[in-house]
């Protein structure tokens, strides 16, 4: 069932994302070609300005659309009239949430990859690639010098942290929409308020934990080794706990408190 839900979610969202990705990649290719054409060095340079603007706008559009679609899909497909269709499918509420979460996370990652690829297409001359390689080498050497053998651990933890906090962003939006759903007649405002309230609570919690931690651990936190051993693992575990709570909260509301208009 989860597989089918994911398939249909990809169908419903892919029709927006795929054309956008194609546009952005074509625009970056056009820009790459235009920079190499000598005729355009004169007054026709305005054409370059035009395509670069279009390209920049398409990058912004991709990032904004990714964010907006994530919210709209969840709200429209589950909380509006379409909810009558989705919640009467022979699926568990948790499967509906998981399908949305997985597909949303995938598009978030895909958007980042597409934007990165388009930058490579546009700027990836052999000279620029050399600079990039040098920069990566330098960063790696620096990390090896500072962290010794645990630099691999640091990179792995960093990637996991990125993914977990991406999921946390998505789940925070979902749980806020679900809580907003409980505010009869003020669902959208309720969602905003929930979002702000939960974010604030998390900020306060993190601050308190850090303060206590600094007190107890004292100067041992100044050691660079603390980053892979303590700071990153703590962030990951903290995010994971938030994610689990957000997921359970959303699921509880869908199971017990659903009240479609």
């Amino acid at each position: 069932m989860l597989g089918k839900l994911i398939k249909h979610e990809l169908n419903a969202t892919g029709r927006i994302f795929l054309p956008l990705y194609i546009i952005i990649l074509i625009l970056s290719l056009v820009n790459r070609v235009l920079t190499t054409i000598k005729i355009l060095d004169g007054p026709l340079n305005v054409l370059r300005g035009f395509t670069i603007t279009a390209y920049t706008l398409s990058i912004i559009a991709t990032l904004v659309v990714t964010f907006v679609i994530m919210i709209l899909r969840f709200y429209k497909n589950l909380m509006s009239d379409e909810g009558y269709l989705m919640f009467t499918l022979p699926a568990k509420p948790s499967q509906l949430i998981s399908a949305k979460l997985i597909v949303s996370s995938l598009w978030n990652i895909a958007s980042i990859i597409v934007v990165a690829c388009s930058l490579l297409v546009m700027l990836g001359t052999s000279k620029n690639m050399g600079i990039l390689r040098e920069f990566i080498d330098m960063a790696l050497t620096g990390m090896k010098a500072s962290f010794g053998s645990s630099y691999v651990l640091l990179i792995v933890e960093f990637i996991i942290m990125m993914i977990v906090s991406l999921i946390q962003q998505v789940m925070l939006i979902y749980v806020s929409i679900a809580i907003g759903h409980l505010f009869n007649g003020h669902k959208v405002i309720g969602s905003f308020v929930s979002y702000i309230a939960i974010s604030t609570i998390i900020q306060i919690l993190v601050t308190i934990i850090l303060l206590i931690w600094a007190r107890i651990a004292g100067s041992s936190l100044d050691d660079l080794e603390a980053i892979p051993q303590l700071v990153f693992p703590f962030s990951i575990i903290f995010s994971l706990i938030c994610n689990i709570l957000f997921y359970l909260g959303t699921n509880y509301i869908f199971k017990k408190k659903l009240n479609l208009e």
Partner: protein
Amino acid sequence: MSVILDCKSLTKKFGSTTALSDLSLSLERGRIIGLLGPNGSGKTTLIKIINGLLVPNEGSITIAGMEPGVESKKIISFLPERTYLPEWMKISDAISFFKDFYEDFEEKRAYDMLHRLNLDPAKRLKTLSKGTKEKVQLILVMSRRADLYCLDEPIGGVDPAARDYILNTIITNYDENATVILSTHLIADIENVLDEVIFIKEGRLVLHAPVDEIREKEGKSIDSLFREVFKC
């Protein structure tokens, strides 16, 4: 005859308003049942509870012996009073969607009915009028081989000619093991197809009886009985 729907002392409150109050009801298979009541009497609340879209505050409900959940949703075909299909879909997309999620969905029946009503499967739902969307939804819902059909206001928004076709569709498309619950306040239009009626008023069950019995005992049509019971 086995029981398809069993409600015991169902109560549902929204804040301080009580939408359903201590409602007990038992429906058997193989019937067409009219769920009748004025606006705000609790018809939609009851239908939502049957479909697992609301959880009652008190009381219990079983569908073919099962509590509302994944298994009950497999055997209930539900038509809400809303237009619930995503607007961007083509009619054919909606058909594949139903085919994918419901094992009892019969694609061929859906296409036959679309053809009969001169609806083009390649049309996007966005381009259809409200009445046409309702027809599409009804076709989808009636193309399932479900045990229980819950139709909430299925004829409210369509013209009288289509109304006849739709009622006919409902009667001819369910098999003898299935039960159809039709919620409406357009009683005169559906009176002839009903086997039983349920009257609810302010969340309470007023009457649940076979139509023939009512006609015999009261000597009047359901429509006039309704006007009497719910007189304002």
